[in-house]
Structure formats: structure tokens, C-alpha cells
């Protein structure tokens, strides 16, 4: 298996391999960072680094440093037969969060995570753990609070803005939480309602959407799912007044489709 870091983060790939209980070597090379992480039946058993941004001490630290390989580069996974080695006890979610902490602790490394986080209009919620699964993760206050704020209602942009955490740091924490699989994306995002309405009804469509926002007193940048549903109901009523029910239903269905 071979991949580039522009398509998926090393952390995300490692978590997937671990969650599927795979065995083998994940080879990482981003230029400034090079090394490999060995997993056995989904557990991290060893790691070696040829190049890292900082000096490493111990297995956990080596894995953390290798997960900082976020720049252009590639990774590959060589599948091996399970060897039933003794697990190191390193939790993949924990080590991913630690690697995210390393990013904001050392801003001088200019590691860009923007391309690795979801767009701002996506809605996330906390992941449910499968029955029988256990994870051990140490959270810092900001990480926990941000995780708790993703309740499946508001979009990413709103949650980050309301979190009170400095934007750059909040984005890095978000990268850590999503890479660690602690947040999952809902099949819902706030679409550009004005654009859809304008396409369907011309400028009057955009005016209807803006009037509905004013009527319902919603801030379009801080809109949750409940507000969105209420807004769509209002829009359906308003569009029905102008174009009739049948046309309104078609337009509202388009708006719904754009949330997925």
C-alpha cells in the first residue's frame, strides 16, 4: 500500500491500520522526517527514525515525531504476517493527540495542517466506540472542551469560533481529534442557500433567503442544524407564497440535497 501525504495524513493512515488490526511496517518519508512504525495485529510494537524535527527519546516520542510528517511526501505500508509481539501499550489516539500538541508547541516548524482538516461548513460529532473497544487518551482542557463542543449541531467554523481557543491552535487540535478518529463527519453540511435560490429563482431567490435570515434572526455564520431546519421550513413557506408549493418543494429538496 502506498500513499501521498496530500491525500491522507500519516496519523490518519496509522489509525486506520491499527483499527483494522493490520500487521506490518509503515514507512514514512516527508523529506525532513523519515522513519518507520511497526505494528502487529493493530498494536504499535516499535518505531525507528532516521530523521526527525527534534531529538527523540523512547518509542512513544519516536512515533510522535514521525507523525509530524505532514508536508509533501509519501508513505507506504508493507504488510507482514502477525508475529504476536507484546504490545507497547501506546494508544494510537493518545499518540496522535500528542503529535498535534507538538505542532502548536513548535509553530516555527511551519507545519501546515489546513489541507488535512475538513472544510468549515462540515458538521462533526463525537465518534461512538464499537462494543468492547477500549481506548486510553490523555486530554488537555482545550482538547476535551473542543471535542465536547462538536455535538453534531453546529458546523466546524462556528464551533472553532465559539470555542474561545486561538484559531491556529483550535485548528491543530481539530486535526488531532479527527486524525485520532475521536470526531466523525456527519452527512450534513450547511449549504450555500443563497446560491441555490439564485440559481433557481434569480435575484428574487437570493432576496427570499436573506429575508428569511432576517425574519428568523439567525446569524448565517453561526447556524446549527436546528436553526437550519427551521430556516428551511420558513423558506419553503416563503417560496410557496411566490412560486407555489410544487416549485418550492423542488427547491427545498435541492437545498436538502446540498447538505449531504
Amino acid at each position, binding site marked *: 500500500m502506498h500513499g501521498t501525504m496530500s491525500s491522507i495524513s500519516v496519523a490518519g493512515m496509522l489509525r486506520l491500520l491499527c483499527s483494522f488490526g493490520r500487521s506490518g511496517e509503515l514507512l514514512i518519508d516527508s523529506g525532513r522526517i523519515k522513519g518507520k512504525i511497526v505494528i502487529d495485529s493493530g498494536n504499535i510494537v516499535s518505531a525507528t527514525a532516521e530523521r526527525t524535527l527534534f531529538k527523540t527519546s523512547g518509542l512513544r516520542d519516536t512515533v510522535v515525531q514521525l507523525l509530524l510528517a505532514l508536508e509533501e511526501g509519501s508513505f507506504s505500508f508493507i504488510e507482514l504476517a502477525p508475529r504476536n509481539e507484546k504490545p507497547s501499550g501506546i494508544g494510537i489516539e493518545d499518540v496522535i493527540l500528542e503529535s498535534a500538541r507538538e505542532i502548536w508547541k513548535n509553530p516555527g516548524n511551519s507545519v501546515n495542517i489546513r489541507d488535512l482538516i475538513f472544510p468549515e461548513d462540515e458538521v462533526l460529532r463525537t465518534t461512538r466506540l464499537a462494543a468492547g473497544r477500549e481506548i486510553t487518551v490523555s486530554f488537555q482542557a482545550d482538547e476535551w472542551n473542543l471535542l465536547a463542543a462538536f455535538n453534531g449541531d453546529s458546523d466546524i467554523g462556528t464551533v472553532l469560533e465559539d470555542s474561545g481557543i486561538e484559531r491556529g491552535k483550535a485548528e491543530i487540535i481539530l486535526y488531532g481529534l479527527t486524525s485520532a478518529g475521536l470526531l466523525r463527519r456527519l452527512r450534513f453540511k450547511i449549504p450555500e442557500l*443563497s446560491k441555490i435560490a439564485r440559481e433557481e429563482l434569480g*435575484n*428574487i431567490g437570493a*432576496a*427570499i433567503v436573506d*429575508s428569511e435570515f432576517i*425574519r428568523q434572526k439567525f446569524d448565517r455564520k453561526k447556524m446549527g442544524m436546528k436553526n437550519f431546519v427551521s430556516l428551511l421550513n420558513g423558506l419553503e413557506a*416563503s417560496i410557496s407564497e*411566490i412560486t407555489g408549493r410544487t416549485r418550492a418543494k423542488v427547491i427545498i429538496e435541492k437545498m436538502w440535497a446540498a447538505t449531504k
Partner: protein
Amino acid sequence: MSEEAMQVYSHIAVVSAGVLFWAGFMVFGFIAGRYTKVFNRETFSGLLMTAPSGILIYAILMLLRSSTMVKSQQFNDGLQVAAYVFLLVSAVLCLAGMIKFGKLLDELLKYKG
């Protein structure tokens, strides 16, 4: 066709035209009312619905004038003047309502958000 039959047909035509005018403006008024509701902007929808009543009144007064019930020429003249005044006022108010509604429509069509 006799003179009397012609007069009956003209009266029917006047009343029908008045009713149709009034109904047409009522529809306009309803549409304008919907725009008022959706955009929370004044369109004089109430005026559009009530102003055409003058056209109906005009038709009724003209009918009365030409009927045989009214014998006085002076009264007939009064009826005619009143009918035309109602028609004029009604037309002015309808125009005012249409201009107001037209302005909103124009704004909406040019709306850039």
C-alpha cells in the same frame, strides 16, 4: 338590433368590465400581499384590492343614470359627475399601488445580496 337591446348589452358590458377590472386588481393585490408577507416590505396591497371598487361604483352609477328610475336631469348629471370622479380616484389609487409594487419588484430583480 333595437335601441333598447343595445342599451341592455352596453349596461351588461359596463358592469362586466367593472367586475373584471376589479377582479384583476384583486388578484394583483393578493400577489402584492404575498410579497409584503415574504419580504416584509410595504406594497400597498390593501390599496390594490380596494381601489378598484371605484370602477365598480362607476359602473353602477352609470347604470343608474341611464335607467328610467331617475327622472331629474340635474340628478342624472350629478350621478355622471360622481361616476367619473370615482373612476378617476380609483384609477389614480390603482396606479399608485402598481407603482409601489412595481418598485419592489424592480428592487428584487436587481437584488445582488
